[in-house]
């Protein structure tokens, strides 16, 4: 295990300079921003409706949450990072988890009664609102996390 970590670390270390070297090239020929184009407008609109119905009363209209009670959704690692733990927050609920150095007292209930598509839409909306910018969440991704979550 330790050896594997080392190998992984070495790979990351080896890959970093390569990426850094590539940067000036991509700068010379700017790549079209695929992230912005990949967010479906319909998903955002449906996501907003779902947010107002299910999330707004705790996380607030600006996504800023409530001091020490309800977690903020603005530029946190939970919202912008790996999608799997984020989907799991909706499927299982959450309490007492430290978010960027702060704890939030209130319980977040599970929203597992929302469909895969609804969870995908609301998360896509959250990941692209309140100053956030991140890739869309797809229903198939939610479905996969839900299937694994059942175990």
């Amino acid at each position, binding site marked *: 295990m330790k050896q594997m970590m080392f190998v992984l670390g070495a790979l990351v270390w080896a890959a970093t300079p390569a990426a850094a070297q590539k940067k000036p090239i991509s700068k010379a020929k700017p790549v079209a921003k695929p992230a912005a184009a990949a967010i479906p407008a319909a998903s955002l609109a449906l996501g907003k409706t779902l947010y107002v119905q299910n999330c707004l009363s705790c996380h607030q209209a600006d996504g800023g949450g409530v001091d020490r009670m309800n977690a903020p959704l603005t530029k946190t690692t939970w919202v912008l990072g790996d999608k799997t733990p984020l989907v799991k927050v909706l499927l299982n609920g959450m309490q007492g988890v430290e978010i960027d150095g702060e704890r939030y007292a209130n319980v977040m209930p*599970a929203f597992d*009664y929302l469909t895969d598509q609804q969870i995908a839409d609301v998360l896509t909306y959250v990941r692209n609102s309140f100053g956030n910018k991140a890739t869309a969440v797809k229903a198939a991704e939610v479905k996969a996390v839900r299937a694994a979550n059942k175990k």
Partner: protein
Amino acid sequence: MKSTTSRYLLLATAVAGSLSLAALKNEDKIVADADNAGLTLPAGFGALKVADTGTRARHITVTPQGTIFVKLNRPTKEGQGILQLREGGTGKATVVAGFGNYGGTGIYSTKDYLYASSDEEVFRYKLNAKGEVTNPTQPEKVITGLLNRQQHESKSITLDQAGNIYVNVGAYANSCQVKDRQKGSMGRPNCPILDSAGGIWQFRADKLNQTYGDGTRYATGLRNVVGLDWNAKSNQLFVMQHGRDQLHDNFPELYDTKESAELPAECLYALNKGDNAGWPYTYFDPAKNKIMVSPEYGGDGKKVSTGSYLAPAMAYPAHTAPNALLFYTGTMFPEKYRNGAFIAFHGSWNRAPEPQKGYYVVFQPFENGKPSGPYEVFADNFAGTPEKANAGRPDHKPCGLAQGTDGSLYVTDDKAGSIYRIVYAKK
């Protein structure tokens, strides 16, 4: 030569000394800040910012000797969960000491002791004749092992005049649902939370290492109390309850968002030993002026409770979060304030999507130990602007209240850590 110099020095010192004495005399009433520290107040009142601590300043107490102690929600980087402040001649104070490496809310002082709470325990520190703590690193543990399950964790405290201490143990749930805050989830029968939380516990103030078995559940059916105070006039404990959240979120077919923003009232209760205020089975509807059955326990927004629960002594706007209660016994403020109650409303979040509300200190008139007549907003604009208040993004959140030795009113803020002092300028 030498002696002449020292004589001049002595003279200079004497002059300076008498000047500062004169200054102190003029300072008999502390001068308010030009902008009243950003607050709006009734005519004749002024306010100054005593200190900007930059901490999460929860409750505050002023000892009979005039020492200010503030309890912090979490300790500073230096491991100080209690700040001791000393005021200069102008009323501006500096932090002179810090101790108690634990976060919490409750703080209370007598002539001899400073009491402070973490979210599980209550400690006391011996005060000397100057009102300074003599054992900052070795407090006595008065109460231990109180339940803390993150939600409603504050252990607010107050003392009566018979050597008892009262502690809030908040319920670790919104409405005792099978699944907390889950849409449609019904209430747990015979709510088991009430065994060890959701009420006020009474202990002896001078006995050490007490826990549940040593105390008495003084009152139950109180979801969460952060502001409480002993009324010396009526010899009775008064508490402010934080009412339940999320009627619309959890039962959208019974309550729309507007109703959910206005229900239930934040209630003041006058407690007697053994009282039951009805949480989680009931809530108070201020428009109907009735104790209603909670939807988790078979209510539908219309069903009035037939249980024998304590009625509130007074009701205030929903979700505004009363975090401090103080009976005013001073003589600085005009007569009408004497023996009335000040209540600090921390401000709401659960009125969204309706505008948020609170972030002010209210005055509740009392007569013969009972609330009498409507409350009035006494100190407002902690938020900074009405827009910030409406958005639930205030600059300051009032959280603690204390009466100064001269009868001025201290207010803490756990958002930016400002300490305010409100004074009355005698005409």
